[in-house]
């Protein structure tokens, strides 16, 4: 029992301190006027391309895809969390703590899940009427649950990327940026995957978001339950894969950093 309680306690305290940090960087007004407004404008920007194409179906496709990818975009910034810790001088302490540093860092950056969720749900609720996209209220709870799933799977991929930039701080902005763009381009957000060659489609299937977004589109289009469940299963599987990858690699990267002395008390 203690094996379960202790990690949860660590996660709780790490999450609390993470939320405190987030609150010291962003007030409600700067968050709403900065990050949230930007994401709403991003969704509106891509959805409006449907008007240029002269097709309501395109407007809906672009709106749903970009409203859902907002959740992933909001989470991927978690990949830079390790460099913030390095800048604050707390990274060596976290790496040296008796528990897994990944557990602490996941807790410290868990607010990004709330961040991503707020972006996506904000877009779905506030902008759907602007673009005449109808989301039946009966289906909204399922859509909500699927957005949560997409947000969590994207967050797991962000924790893996956070391990990658642990010892390569110069890539701290580049790695999440490329990840965001790859997801926006190839996961069926704005462009149907059928446009791309088969190898690209297969690789996109290994990314978080792809199957979750398919499931959300399926729910909204009234697809067969079995099809939607297949997509949900694949999204869960992909998310579990990214979490496993994080668990397998993070400690090794932290150990490598300890060996070569690249984990320092201040940003270099």
């Amino acid at each position, binding site marked *: 029992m203690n094996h379960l309680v202790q990690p949860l306690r660590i996660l709780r305290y790490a999450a609390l301190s993470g939320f405190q940090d987030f609150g010291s960087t962003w007030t409600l007004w*700067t968050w709403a006027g900065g990050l949230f407004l930007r994401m709403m404008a991003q969704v509106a920007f891509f959805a409006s391309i449907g008007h240029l194409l002269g097709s309501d179906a395109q407007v809906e496709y672009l709106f749903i895809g970009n409203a859902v990818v907002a959740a992933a975009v909001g989470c991927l910034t978690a990949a830079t969390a390790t460099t913030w810790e390095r800048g604050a001088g707390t990274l060596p302490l976290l790496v040296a703590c008796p528990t897994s540093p990944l557990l602490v860092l996941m807790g410290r950056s868990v607010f990004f899940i709330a961040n991503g969720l707020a972006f996506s749900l904000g877009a779905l609720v506030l902008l759907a009427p602007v673009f005449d996209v109808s989301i039946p209220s009966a289906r909204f709870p399922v859509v909500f649950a699927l957005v949560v799933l997409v947000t969590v799977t994207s967050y797991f991929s962000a924790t893996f990327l956070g391990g990658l930039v642990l010892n390569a701080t110069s890539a701290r902005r580049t790695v999440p940026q490329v990840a965001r763009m790859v997801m926006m381009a190839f996961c069926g957000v704005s462009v149907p995957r059928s446009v791309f060659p088969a190898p690209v489609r297969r690789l996109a299937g290994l990314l978080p978001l792809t199957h979750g977004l398919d499931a959300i589109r399926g729910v909204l289009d009234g697809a067969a339950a079995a099809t939607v469940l297949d997509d949900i299963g694949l999204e869960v599987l992909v998310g579990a894969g990214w979490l496993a990858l994080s668990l397998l690699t993070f400690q090794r990267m932290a150990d490598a950093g300890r060996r070569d002395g690249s984990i320092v008390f201040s940003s270099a």
Partner: protein
Amino acid sequence: MRGLRGAARLQFQIVRADRGYLNEILANPFFAIIFLGIVRAAGRRDLTAYAVVAPVLITLWGMALEISGDIVDSDRGVGILEGVVATPVGFPTVVSGRVLAVTLLSGVAIVETWLVARIGFGVDITVHHPWALLATVVVTGLAAAGTAVIMAGVFVLARTAKTFQNSLNYPIFLLAGVIVPLSFLPGWLRPVGRMLFLSWSADLLRESLAPAAMVDVIPRLGIVLALGAAGLVVGRAVMHVVLTRVRILGTLSFE
């Protein structure tokens, strides 16, 4: 001019040392894939010009915005902002020179977009009005450098430049009709879009790729330049007020 050149040279050296500044250039091919993919999937090859112009302008604006925020943020972070502000050449000139350098670099976006269109989508882009295209690219770069001074001024005053950096991109892309022309915006928003030099640049670039004869090219190029110059004048005024204020309050490097 020497100050401007020196600032540009400094920025080139900074970019060589910190590749993070090239993120926008890295993002460009993805934007090209997205826009060309949307047009391809919808079977609207007639909109190819829209799909190739947008990534170029997004890269150019993104880099100008990134650097105008980072100049203040990073210089403040390493404790040299006071020194830079105190230089005889003046802070606005330093900002313009440094933004001009990254604007020149964002010219790579044209090549990237062309390569994605050619190799990725088998699309040949014909430039029907090359001189208009070249002139638009040049004046757009100059206008970006001028406008960046306003943003840098605000960033000096703001608690953190990132707040603004993260929020300005997409609202501007939307309002300036970077891909969807202003005629699709609600009527009351169009005059706002016309105040942004990017909206004039977007129209000129799209038309330079179309076979139809272009009209009023020189006046419209003049408007892009005038909006950039207005940005520079307003930016200098904002910067003067802001710098005077933070000098009095002693909050230039308050972080």
